[in-house]
């Protein structure tokens, strides 16, 4: 059983930059030279798919909806409902971003099941980029709503001794979000390939009595069926749950930075 767990394939690489970081840096920072990778291609595909979904879903919007429009409106309405329930009615304008994040995450995870593309969310760079956007939104809204000084002062609360803790937790927030999403998707794919390999071995053991020639031609039959159920969990269920969790965390963090107008007024006074 030979199995290697790899990151995304590299397609285009800037050689001198790669050389500069490859040797001395740890694994985590060894990717700086790679301009185009499998993930880049996946993200491109996700963008195209989402654009098509958007175009198809919003085609011929009328007061008397057709079947497709009913579905689109239901989903968009649900999304708005979710955002308004979680963040409050005054934060309804965040819905397009949350929706974009949600769809990108789901399609980015599911695109791995096509066997043509690698899951975009199975690359730490992508989830980290998204998590940093969330952090950026939180900081921006905090400063916009409470002022720069109040935001900085927020780190010393409830007592000054807590300041280092607060700073660490602020940094840990995007990292934990990124790793949670990445880990679930990438872990799922690793587990799936492990099971594939194991099933191949089991297959070989089961049909070991066949002559060597036949064994070469004989497909690993046990690989059919079982991985499909695992894929239901690791790709579809987990992909959905992780997208939901990522969006929910984004909503909760951003909502904390965007309190309702009345509350904001009382805070400022």
């Amino acid at each position: 059983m030979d199995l290697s767990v790899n990151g995304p394939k590299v397609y285009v690489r800037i050689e001198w930059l790669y050389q500069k970081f490859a040797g001395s840096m740890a694994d985590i920072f060894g990717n700086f030279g790679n301009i185009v990778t499998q993930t880049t291609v996946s993200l491109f595909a996700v963008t195209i798919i989402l654009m098509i979904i958007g175009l198809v879903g919003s085609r011929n919007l009328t007061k008397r909806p057709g079947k497709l429009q009913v579905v689109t409106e239901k989903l968009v309405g649900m999304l708005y409902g979710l955002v308004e329930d979680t963040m409050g009615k005054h934060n309804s304008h965040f819905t397009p971003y949350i929706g974009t994040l949600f769809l990108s995450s789901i399609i980015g995870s599911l695109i791995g099941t096509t066997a043509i593309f690698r899951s975009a969310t199975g690359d730490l760079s992508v989830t980290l980029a998204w998590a940093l956007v969330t952090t950026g939104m939180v900081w921006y809204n905090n400063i916009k709503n409470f002022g720069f000084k109040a935001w900085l002062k927020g780190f010393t609360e409830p007592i000054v001794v807590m300041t280092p803790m607060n700073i660490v937790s602020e940094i840990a927030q995007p990292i934990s979000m990124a790793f949670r999403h990445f880990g679930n998707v990438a872990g799922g794919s690793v587990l799936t390939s492990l099971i594939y390999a194991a099933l191949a071995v089991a297959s070989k053991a089961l049909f070991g009595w066949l002559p060597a020639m036949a064994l070469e031609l004989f497909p690993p039959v046990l690989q059919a069926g079982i991985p499909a159920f695992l894929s239901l969990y690791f790709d579809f269920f987990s992909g959905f749950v992780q997208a939901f969790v990522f969006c929910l965390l984004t909503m909760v963090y951003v909502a904390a930075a965007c309190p309702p107008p009345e509350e904001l007024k009382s805070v400022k006074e």
Partner: protein
Amino acid sequence: MKVVFDAFESFVGVNVWTMLFAWCNLLIIYLFLKKILFVPVKKMIDSRQKEVDDMYSTAEAAENDAKAMKAEYEKKLESANEESEEILRTAQRRALLKEEEILKEASVEAARIRERADEEIALEKKRMLGEIKDEVSGMAIDIASAVIGREVSPSEHEKFIDNFIDELGTN
């Protein structure tokens, strides 16, 4: 720059280029979906919701109007009933008065007629009595003439005849 196909990135690693690409894609998808999907669909949902709300409120107003109208009509109908009853009552009263009047008039008339009849009867009686008296006096003269054997003239024997008649009446 070099095209490679056999190299892999590390499993857990950060690639700034991929991050940049992720950001760009996220921005593009966000702007695109916001413009073409979320905002128009939300607008459509809201406008339909508003239309439905308007419809309901219009219907409610119409219902209230109808209810008010109904109440008004019912009130009118009631007053009309009262009015008709009043009219009937007045008519009845007037009819009663009229009846009484007519009855009274009739009885007065009857009394008058009876009176006149009585008078007439009395007159007739008187006339008859006179006539009878004349007849009887004639007969008496005739009888007396026969008895006496000579002419009895009414003028000469008036006193005698009258006495005779009076005696006849008393007997």
